[in-house]
């Protein structure tokens, strides 16, 4: 019987000091009024100056090679830093995609020139990236994209439309997945796609806001009309884009941002109910904590497995499904234990959680897609 594997795993002791350093840094920032803890900050709270401070403090690009300006530490060191930033509700949307996936992608697939040009400023928290994946009507069926790149003198011309590119209006680049060979010629739906780094300020780029029901402008539609991309911005092997993207999914799906988005609300809830809750209120809070702790354990197991060269795609899908549901339910429990109207700061966190919740279980693969992945791994099909 196939069974999901979450080998017992723990973060190395070497991460402990780093954790305390980040915590000290954040305590000072909060005390200085640099930010007020919010929910879902990795998507919504874009603060270039805060990201630059993190860069200056050495908290970005941690696992990246020193050769290109990184800190040469481990993915688990980054994991600890990210946990602290999320748990404290710090404004980290500016560098989020850059630090999580664009940097590693460029280091893995990018040209030498691209690495030298981009990575140092990403480590410094000065160049920010978005994601260019989804297209209108592609929905959960990512392979159905229609944007194209055609070869031209010294580079490529990109055309098409990407949607749900978070913070494209505030960021500098995105890594975009496009067709470089038509489906008919490529022979298979997943073949003939390639990845490029694209400058979001280049001529021919039109960025239009997609406003969401929580009142945010986090997302954009990015329309590309003959956008020129230089040759050295091709990522990896021409035509191999799909495999490159899929290889990143476990990284994208397994992070602590999949269960910590509403942690600041949980902490606030504990203060709001006070030190002497009823048995039943205590049980509701305690169960949220038990769930958080259990998912954190699984998430660490996935992170360690990734760090050891494993590719726990299914396990990551499972953690994301469960974690995002927990994120939503924290909002539901909080608003019922503490009625609104008494504490505006608390109400703000509840509002963040409630109105952003639909996104938690849709972004990065809907929970229905994720459960299908898990079921297949379990051996039904």
């Amino acid at each position: 019987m196939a069974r999901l594997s979450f080998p017992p795993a723990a973060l190395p002791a070497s991460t402990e000091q780093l954790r305390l350093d980040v915590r000290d840094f954040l305590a000072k920032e909060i005390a200085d009024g640099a930010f007020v803890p919010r929910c879902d900050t990795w998507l919504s709270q874009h603060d270039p100056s805060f990201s630059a401070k993190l860069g200056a403090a050495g908290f970005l690009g941690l696992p990246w090679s020193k050769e290109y300006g990184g800190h040469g530490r481990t993915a688990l060191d980054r994991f600890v830093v990210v946990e602290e930033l999320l748990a404290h509700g710090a404004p980290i949307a500016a560098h989020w995609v850059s630090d999580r996936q664009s940097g590693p992608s460029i280091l893995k697939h990018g040209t030498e020139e691209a690495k030298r040009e981009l990575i140092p400023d990403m480590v410094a928290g000065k160049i920010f990236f978005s994601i260019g994946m989804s297209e209108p009507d592609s929905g959960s069926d990512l392979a159905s994209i229609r944007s194209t790149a055609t070869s031209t003198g010294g580079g490529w011309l990109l055309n098409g439309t990407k949607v749900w590119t978070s913070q494209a209006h505030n960021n500098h680049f995105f890594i975009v997945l496009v067709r470089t060979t038509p489906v008919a010629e490529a022979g298979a739906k997943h073949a003939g796609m390639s990845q490029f780094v694209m400058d979001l300020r280049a001529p021919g780029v039109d960025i239009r806001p997609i406003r969401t029901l929580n009142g945010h402008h986090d997302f954009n539609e990015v329309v590309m009309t003959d956008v020129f991309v230089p040759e050295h911005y091709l990522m990896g092997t021409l035509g191999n884009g799909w495999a490159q993207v899929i290889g990143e999914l476990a990284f994208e799906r397994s992070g602590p941002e999949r269960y910590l988005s509403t942690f600041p609300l949980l902490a606030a809830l504990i203060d709001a109910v006070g030190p002497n809750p009823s048995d039943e209120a205590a049980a509701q809070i305690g169960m949220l904590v038990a769930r958080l702790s259990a998912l954190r354990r699984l998430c660490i197991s996935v992170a360690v497995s990734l760090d050891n060269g494993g590719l726990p795609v299914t396990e990551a899908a499972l953690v994301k499904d469960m974690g995002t549901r927990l994120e939503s339910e924290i909002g539901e429990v909080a608003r019922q234990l503490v009625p609104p109207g008494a504490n505006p700061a608390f109400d703000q966190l509840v509002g963040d959680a409630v109105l952003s919740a639909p996104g938690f279980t849709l972004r990065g693969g809907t929970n229905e897609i994720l459960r299908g992945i898990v079921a297949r791994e379990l051996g039904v099909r």
Partner: protein
Amino acid sequence: MRADDLLVETIEGLLSKEVTPERIHAAEGGMDASLWTLLEDNGLTSVGVPESAGGMGGTLHDLGAIVRAAGRHGAPVPIGDTLVAATFLTGAAIPSGPLALAVVRNDRPVIRIPWGGVAQHVVAVSDDGVALHPVGSMPISAHGDNYAGEPWIEVPADALRAGARPSNAGPSHAQGAGAFARAMLMAGALERIVDLSVQYANEREQFGKQIGKFQTIQHYLAEMAGEAAAAGGALDTALDVASSSADTEQHILVIAAAKAYAGRAVSTVNRLAHQIHGAIGFTDEHRLQYSTRRLWAWRDEFGSESEWAAVLGRAVASGGGDALWPTLTRWPAAVA
């Protein structure tokens, strides 16, 4: 940290061979004495007891692996209770035969003792300390079976308190130890139910196809697998913290989290497993119900999920919101 691989292989191999549905069925209302003897002969009933005290030695993770395996197979013997009860007999000789653990709460005149119906001795933990009683010497005021046919007895609290040797351990520790054993058993049983359900979904046909091809069944299985994995993770964290952290106040909290999560998982996993199995899984001849009935029984014993979640919730509430994250990041302990 993890259990000794050889030990895990031994217990798995032994239980796979011995614990058949027929023997589980036959043991209801009592225990499987020959299985117990086999476990004893293999030294598995004293893992976690130091060799100096006549035990087999071994770590808490070893103990956890044995009990989890017992839960996975539904082994009809009080192995979990025996192993955790023995940990209260520090400095005393550990008697042979199954042990039961009595949590002598101050608010109950009569104490229900899981597995008391087949144990040789009861380890009774009260505010007076720890007492070891031969079951034959106890005044039994009531007896019965839990949902899984595991026989309990009820004994007046005063009789259990008698003859206690002073100890640092009190009833709350015994409640925690019993809950820990249940969390181990439950983690195993939850895994088993996921396996049985996947297997059934691939075998059973309805409306001309395997039911595992229905999207709803697939999603049920994914949800069950998630709950089982998380319950296992909560248990692993409890084992790690309880064996490595010097801060003993944390021990009860990670056990609370493990028992609470396991109890929560039962609601989902048992419900969906029976829904997948349909009518056949509801009969007493199907393998499934040996696992689901155990889970229904175990989630109530030594504190339900709501009681343990409240223990955890009160602790974090008294610490305040800012203390929650530092607490969580102390479990699992960072290790080299």
